[in-house]
């Protein structure tokens, strides 16, 4: 990533489905502040919704955190969001990130899909260590 500055980071805890609404609202607000444009905003919020939902569905007690950060680099603005949980973790990252992966008919974690929606995507996970996914979207 290029030169970035941390101007403000907001962290929210995820305890259940009810928090998804707040997270989407937060992402949407930051996206508009950064001037992402409607399509990029929609993609970012959708990806965020997917990742947050993963936490609710698969993390221990459905708990985790989501933090949203403003980005600024060389005149461009962006939004970065990190989704973290201390759940079971993912054993095989390659498998999960491969397109077409699914657990029993559903889209599974939907990670490849989320990755396609954002400019930057990074995932860190291992069994017993939980999972953190960081995404970022930039204004054009």
């Amino acid at each position, binding site marked *: 990533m290029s030169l970035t500055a941390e101007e403000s980071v907001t962290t929210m805890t995820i305890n259940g489905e009810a928090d998804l609404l707040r997270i989407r609202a937060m992402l949407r607000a930051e996206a508009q502040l950064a001037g992402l444009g*409607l399509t990029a905003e929609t*993609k970012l919020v*959708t990806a965020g919704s*997917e990742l947050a939902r993963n936490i609710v569905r698969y993390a221990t007690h459905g708990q985790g955190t989501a933090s949203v950060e403003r980005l600024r680099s060389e005149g461009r603005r962006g939004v970065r969001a990190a989704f973290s949980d201390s759940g079971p973790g993912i054993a095989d990252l390659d498998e999960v990130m491969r397109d077409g992966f699914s657990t029993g008919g559903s*889209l599974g974690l939907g990670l490849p*899909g989320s990755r396609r929606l954002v400019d930057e995507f990074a995932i860190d996970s291992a069994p017993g260590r939980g999972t953190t996914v960081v995404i970022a979207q930039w204004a054009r």
Partner: protein
Amino acid sequence: MPEDVPIIRMGPNLLVALQGNLDDTTVEQIERAVTGEVARTQATGTLIDVSGLSIVDSFVARVLARLVAMIRLLGAEATIVGLQPAVAITLVELGVPMGHVRTALNAEQGMARLRGSRDEPDR
């Protein structure tokens, strides 16, 4: 979403608008209301207006697909109308399979198509 799901009747067809936050409880209510009304009125077609949905993630997409499946099982046709441009491209990029879902630009177009539709195998 209010307790009672507003479903509008237009001749042999029904129109239901989905908006706001769709959580598990709301979804259940909608499914019950729509299937109930399709059966009660013997509707031949249902339009599901999604123009009020600004975010459709995989959960919402599955809700739509299930709703369509339920309506079809009752012998009626179902058409999604009014999907927003940004939502459309996001859904495609997300990779949620929606190939089996019928769509129309708006309620009017959806209605016109329902009127002219014949029995045909699902895609």
